[in-house]
């Protein structure tokens, strides 16, 4: 399938260096070592060594996945976001445009974004797509995830970076949230408090402890909780279940007022992705997919439909998502 407007692919470092030098505006994903070799220019980036390519899932430290912002974009502005200005993320966005956002994993700014983005002025009115940057699984603890501001050359370990792209009036960005998981017909779980840690909850209306429930039911925690947002699935992945403290750590916050169910098990990830991505759909202008899907689904070397892009440590389509494929399309209007 041919991309509508945006050129994106996994490239060598010299190829990306040349594109930056040619003045292209880019959204980049690569290892810290790879991104550090790039010159200053009109780009933002985030660390990952995992990618979806035309040849299937790839792990590489010497390549960079480059998404080129189309020439019809009117303006592209790079802004760093820390705790002090994160609430302006959506209101800083152009009236009509698309914002690419990269947030390093395990940071306060990520926690704040995950928990508070829905309350920020302009949320959902201005499309924001992006991902959480991370490091190779075997380097967790030895290397920090980072966002890169290519304009200034800054490597950000506790701030996010955004590329606000203004679009002409005849173009609009559309975001898609694609999940291979279904909430199924299981028990309905409600949480009283928002957050990344779940202890108490209500299951089918009765008070319960989530950790005890998971253990007693033998629930496979490689499959997420699925929140029902008026039919749109918002996955929350399980990080850890502690039988002693009776606490469940999550990769994204749960929210009160949302019906959650545990996902029905998916045994063949690659086939499941191919099925939901749809061979008849046009290639998106940007996409990213979750590292947990990559690891649990053993997707290295396997194709996931026609979608390419970085494999990430949390996906962003307006808000933080887990175990999700996010697609962005630039549409004619």
């Amino acid at each position, binding site marked *: 399938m041919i991309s509508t407007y945006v050129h994106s692919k996994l490239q060598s470092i010299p190829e990306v260096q040349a594109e930056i030098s040619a003045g292209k505006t880019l959204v980049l994903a690569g290892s810290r070592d790879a991104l550090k070799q790039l010159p200053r220019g009109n780009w933002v980036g985030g660390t990952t060594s995992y990618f979806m390519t035309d040849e299937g899932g790839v792990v590489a430290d010497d390549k960079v996945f480059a998404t080129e912002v189309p020439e019809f974009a009117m303006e592209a502005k790079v802004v760093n976001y820390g705790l002090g200005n994160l609430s302006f993320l959506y209101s800083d966005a152009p009236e009509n445009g698309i914002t690419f956002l990269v947030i390093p994993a395990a940071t306060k700014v990520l926690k704040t974004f995950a928990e508070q983005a*829905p309350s920020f002025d302009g*949320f*959902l*009115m201005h*499309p924001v797509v992006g991902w959480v940057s991370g490091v190779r699984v075997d380097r967790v603890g030895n290397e920090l995830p980072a966002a890169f501001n290519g304009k200034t050359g800054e490597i950000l370990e506790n701030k996010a970076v955004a590329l606000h792209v203004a679009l002409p009036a005849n173009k*609009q960005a*559309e*975001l*898609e*949230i694609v999940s291979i998981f279904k909430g199924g017909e299981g028990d309905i779980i409600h949480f009283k408090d928002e957050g990344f840690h779940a202890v108490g909850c209500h299951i089918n209306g009765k008070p319960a402890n989530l950790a005890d429930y998971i253990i007693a039911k033998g629930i496979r925690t490689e499959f997420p909780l699925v929140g029902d*947002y*008026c*039919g*749109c699935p*918002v996955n929350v992945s399980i990080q850890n279940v502690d039988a002693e403290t009776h606490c469940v750590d999550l990769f994204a916050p749960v*929210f*009160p*007022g*949302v019906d959650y169910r545990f996902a029905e098990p998916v045994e063949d990830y690659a086939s499941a992705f191919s099925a939901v991505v749809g061979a008849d759909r046009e290639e998106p202008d940007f996409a990213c997919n979750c590292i947990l899907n990559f690891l649990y689904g053993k997707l290295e070397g396997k194709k996931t439909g026609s979608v390419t892009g970085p494999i990430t440590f949390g996906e962003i*389509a*307006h*808000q933080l998502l887990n175990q999700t494929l996010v697609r962005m399309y630039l*549409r004619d*209007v």
Partner: protein
Amino acid sequence: MLPDANHQVWGKIVAGEKSVQTGNATVNLLIKSLKMSYGLDRSPANQNQLIAKLHSFFSRYESTLASEIAQIFL
């Protein structure tokens, strides 16, 4: 032509009295967000604010939400 913000349907959507079947993730997230806010604060002032946000969204993206608008108003 999109009905103005005074049309009663906007309020029904915010209050969860009218559902919108759509595959558009942003619409689904928005409606859920508005309903959650309304559930926490059912005051007329908040309801009007939520209706204004919903109407503003549909005005902004009217050209790409034709099927949703037809579903709501036809």
